[in-house]
């Protein structure tokens, strides 16, 4: 039973364009969502997060959107750069700090390739 799903195994984008990575979840109790980036032979690196009380969070070129009614979130990267090429994992938590701290349920990941 996969509670967090990333249905696109891969995404290819031209440098300078927008990259949109999608994530769906089934557990309505999730209330904190994170995106991690992973380069080959390295561990996942935290990128950006969003609490369920918000619908948008922005950090530089990265914006995460949350649609609670649809149980869907997306990560937008604008403009995309070749250095953004990596595997992106969506993750969800049952509580922001306090109760579930860093216990994360991950999606399978999406391989993003940004072409020069």
């Amino acid at each position, binding site marked *: 039973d996969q509670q967090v799903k990333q249905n696109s195994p891969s995404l290819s984008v031209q440098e300078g364009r927008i990259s949109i990575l999608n994530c769906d979840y089934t557990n309505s109790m999730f209330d904190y969502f994170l995106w991690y980036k992973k380069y080959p032979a390295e*561990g996942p690196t*935290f990128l950006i997060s969003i609490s369920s009380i918000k619908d948008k969070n922005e950090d530089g070129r990265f914006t995460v959107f949350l649609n609670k009614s649809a149980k869907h979130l997306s990560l937008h990267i604008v403009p995309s750069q070749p250095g953004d090429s990596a595997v992106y994992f969506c993750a969800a938590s049952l509580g922001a700090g306090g109760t579930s701290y860093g216990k994360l349920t991950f999606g399978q990941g999406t391989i993003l390739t940004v072409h020069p």
Partner: protein
Amino acid sequence: DAMVIQNPRYQVTQFGKPVTLSCSQTLNHNVMYWYQQKSSQAPKLLFHYYDKDFNNEADTPDNFQSRRPNTSFCFLDIRSPGLGDAAMYLCATSRGDITEAFFGQGTRLTVV
């Protein structure tokens, strides 16, 4: 730099031979986690320590054990590795009051 360090990066073990993976952290975080990631799959939480309290996920096989002798170190013991245990093992840490977890580089385990 404060970080999470896993040793070794690559580990080859024989079928059925006990193996231990190690993780250390300089972040002084009170929570430490072990995740298992098989090829092209999502990382899956095996267990975690909140301070000294051990918390096992319900579906983690008994073959997997963990030790946390102090705040900085955590070990993953696989008592009798099977071929299905070949995976990337990721250690992570967090502060108990925040959700973001910080990951080590992982240990790639091969079972022969």
